[in-house]
């Protein structure tokens, strides 16, 4: 294990200063070089990641791997233009070379960056000892071995179990020509269980997972290895008896928690400022307009302690915040990074994120959820004569230009005369973002956040996110099954 133990300290910058010989003087020289052709703004993003993953398969610890990577991405903005270069060699010569490469986006006389940096006051959202995980491998192995045993014990028809644990520690340091300076040490871990159930010739799958920016103690309660294993096994066994999903428009009730992926796809992406700045989003120009039922309020909140989508600072060094996207059904705001905020004359919401030092930051979601309403979840189900009750989903996708989005139900049931009846096979649900939430007629009081499994992809960049929702009823949505 290569994670060095560190003494507690208020700043994480010392890591890069000590391990890679970075100095404030070098940061200033690189920024000076980056603006040598006259860019408006430049920033340096140093990143060092250590990752470990462990896997149990066929009841034995079958795989173990670790990886480290480090590098620096240098960005220069000139008007709407972005020049970008990165290097995985942090020597002064290579950093200066990358800065000169990124600088070429601009053409003009050199600009002088701000002398001296102002450190972004850091939140402390990750309940992990500073310096990261203690890397007690035995404790981590025990988690996945427990998950394996619990899944097998659930039902003799569970024939395959894989349990995996992964964690990473990402250290970042950001210095910008506007004087912004931030550093952070971001832990992230995750426990996953995948099972296969088999009965006669039919095989089915089930999966569950949980995690967040916290230590091993988070794997208790609904995130305990046993709970996750039972959840995965239950899903697979349920599918053995599932009937074809219905096809066509109907009333749909979404359960609390992870089904909040609806919000991520239906409205979240469409509200990222870059799409709206370019007027390529179906939500362009709709601020102040009704885009959902008055019962709907949606926020994006990067400041929730320990959650997978949370960050002390975004990848441009801006403190994260809670941003109201939709309030009482009315579109309130977009998610913005520095570039879009400047070009649109809007506030920066601290939403500039990137996959790694090799990627250009852009506006992204953090934890996106709908606030609780007042309806009793039981009443919501009882109100449906014929419809679908979907409680778990695989992934989703959206075309932000025409607003069409899909998300795929992996656990859903028919609702007949207000009662949950047969489980149905996998089906994709489809809708139109600016319209779908107008059909929300009931909102439960049972807001729940997901267990910490979401990864969002945009322009080839993946970042961890969270979603959440109470039980809601949509008066119409299209269900893509094969049945009647």
């Amino acid at each position, binding site marked *: 294990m290569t994670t060095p133990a560190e003494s507690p300290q208020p700043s994480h910058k010392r890591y890069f200063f000590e391990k890679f*010989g970075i100095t404030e003087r070098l940061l200033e020289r690189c920024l000076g070089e980056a603006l040598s052709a006259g860019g408006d703004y430049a920033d340096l993003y140093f990143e060092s990641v250590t990752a470990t*993953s462990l896997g149990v398969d066929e009841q034995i610890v*079958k795989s173990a791997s670790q990886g*480290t990577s480090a*590098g620096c991405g240098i960005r220069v903005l000139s008007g709407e233009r972005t020049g*970008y270069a990165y290097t995985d060699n942090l020597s002064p010569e290579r950093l200066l070379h990358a800065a000169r490469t990124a600088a*070429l986006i601009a053409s003009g006389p050199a600009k002088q960056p701000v002398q001296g940096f102002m450190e972004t006051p850091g939140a402390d959202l990750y309940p992990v000892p500073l310096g990261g995980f203690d890397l007690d491998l035995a404790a981590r192995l025990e988690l996945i071995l427990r998950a394996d045993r619990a899944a097998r014990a659930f039902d003799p028809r569970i024939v395959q179990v894989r349990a995996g644990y992964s964690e990473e520690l990402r250290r970042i340091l950001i210095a910008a020509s506007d004087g912004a300076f931030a550093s952070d040490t971001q832990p992230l871990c995750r426990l996953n269980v995948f099972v296969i159930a088999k009965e006669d010739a039919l*095989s089915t799958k089930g999966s569950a997972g949980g995690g967040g920016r916290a230590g091993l103690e988070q794997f208790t309660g609904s995130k305990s290895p046993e709970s996750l294993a039972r959840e995965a096994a239950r899903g697979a066994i349920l599918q053995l008896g599932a009937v074809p999903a219905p096809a066509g428009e109907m009333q749909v009730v979404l359960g609390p928690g992870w089904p909040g992926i609806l919000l991520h796809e239906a409205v979240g992406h469409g509200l990222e400022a870059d799409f709206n700045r370019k007027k390529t989003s179906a939500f362009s120009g709709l601020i102040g307009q009704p885009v959902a039922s008055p019962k709907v309020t949606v926020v994006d909140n990067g400041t929730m302690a320990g959650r997978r989508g949370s960050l002390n600072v975004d990848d441009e060094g801006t403190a994260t915040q809670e941003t109201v996207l939709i309030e009482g059904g009315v579109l309130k705001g977009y998610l913005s990074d520095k570039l879009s905020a400047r070009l649109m004359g809007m506030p920066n919401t601290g939403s500039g994120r990137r996959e790694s030092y090799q990627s250009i930051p852009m506006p992204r979601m953090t934890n996106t959820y709908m606030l609780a309403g007042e309806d009793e979840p039981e009443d919501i189900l009882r109100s449906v004569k014929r419809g679908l009750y979907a409680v778990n989903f695989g992934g989703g996708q959206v075309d932000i230009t025409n607003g069409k989005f899909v998300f795929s139900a992996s656990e859903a049931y028919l609702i007949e005369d207000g009662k949950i009846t047969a489980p149905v096979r996998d089906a994709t649900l489809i809708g139109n973002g600016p319209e779908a939430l107008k059909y929300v007629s009931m909102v439960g009081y049972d807001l729940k956040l997901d267990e910490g499994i979401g990864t969002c992809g945009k322009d080839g960049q993946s970042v961890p996110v969270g979603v959440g929702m109470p039980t809601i009823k949509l008066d119409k949505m*299209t269900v893509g*099954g094969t049945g009647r």
Partner: protein
Amino acid sequence: MPEVTAAPELTALDLESLTADLVAQAMKAGASDAEAVAREGDEFSVTVRMGQVETLTESGSRALGLRVFLGKRSASSSTSDLTADGIRQLVAGAMALAKVTAEDSCAGLPEKDEFGVVESDLHLYYDDVYSLPGAERIEWARRAEAAALASDPRIANSDGGSFNAATGRKVLANSRGFAGGYRTSYAGVSVAPLAVDADGRMQRDGWWSSARCFAHLESPEAVGAEAARRALRRLGARRVPTQQAPIVFAPEVARSLIGSVFEAASGDSIWRSASFLAGRLGEQIGAAHLTIVDDNTMLLPTGAGGFGTSPFDGEGLPSRRTVVVENGILRNYLLNTYTARKLGLKSTHNASRGLAGTPGIGCGNLYLEPGSLNPDQIIAAIPAGFYVTSLMGFGTNIVTGDYSRGATGLWIEDGQLTHAVEEVTIAGNLAEMLRSVTAIGNDLVFRGAVASPTLRVDGMTIAGA
């Protein structure tokens, strides 16, 4: 504080020596076997939006990966730190992790007599991908977008045109004597225009050309015109009623079905019974005219190696051609060494290897053999049906075969393409869909590693209004 890092910069990086040395160090540290990979790559990309440069990226990176065995135990590690210190930590990390894993009877490198490389020139690298001067590269991206914008007044906005170039090198070495490496090159031009109708409703589509050799790229003007045509034909899209109707998959979406067959036939899905094709080897699983081939040695008509061509697989076994499905009969599972041992079979040389982790299973050039009908003939035979040009979502369950995805395309009426369709799903079960392929087009073109001609599938359900 000193301004110079402890590590001197590596110049003229010798990946062959680096991997050989890494294997030797792992063996010295007590490994019974070891395998090292090295990756090196550089990339250039430029995006032009509404005629102005939007982003310009230029960079390079490299990394090392190590897999060690302690008898039947194994673990892996990877790093971007190629200094002596970084490499020491790479070896120590993998060795420490291997000790916590359990013995797995199927673990281990391939046998010595299995290793090899395809000796003929596979034409994977062309040094012309960086031959364009910087200003000309920007010009290519600009031209592609300009062609789209100029083709019709309704093309009123754009997500930009782009030009990319990249070269890379992969080296693999192990303690059983295998050492090999190859370089690859890539160039691409693409554009994503937006069409806007009189009511302000927007549709976006895109098109691209990619090649290993710059000289093989289609012109930016051709790419831009095709992208515009695709965006324009989506205007006026509406939903259709829920019904069963023949589905015609255009080549760019049909290829995802072929990809699903590959995944379902890959050894890791098979030995776990996690596939609707598990246990079906030698059986009729598709229509009688359905033949699917994975050819990792293929050259394109231009003479360049295919996008999935390589001299050896992720474990150092020589690349080959494997018939997956022949006339509807499942002929081969796709296997790496581990899954072959699990199933009591031989590897089909389909190991894929990332930097860290155990080898997976990957396809080379995977395609469905073309039929004799042209796409117009396939459409002409359909009184009412759905011509699908793009798919959304992840609704493909390889275990059960259940298939349900968002779809966009054009409605077929009396054998003609009519209005655009959106916000509907198409659903079925892959096992039934493969048996219900009733027509295969003659239009097989490799725009990527996985390719299919136009396909007609009957019996699926469209869910809509």
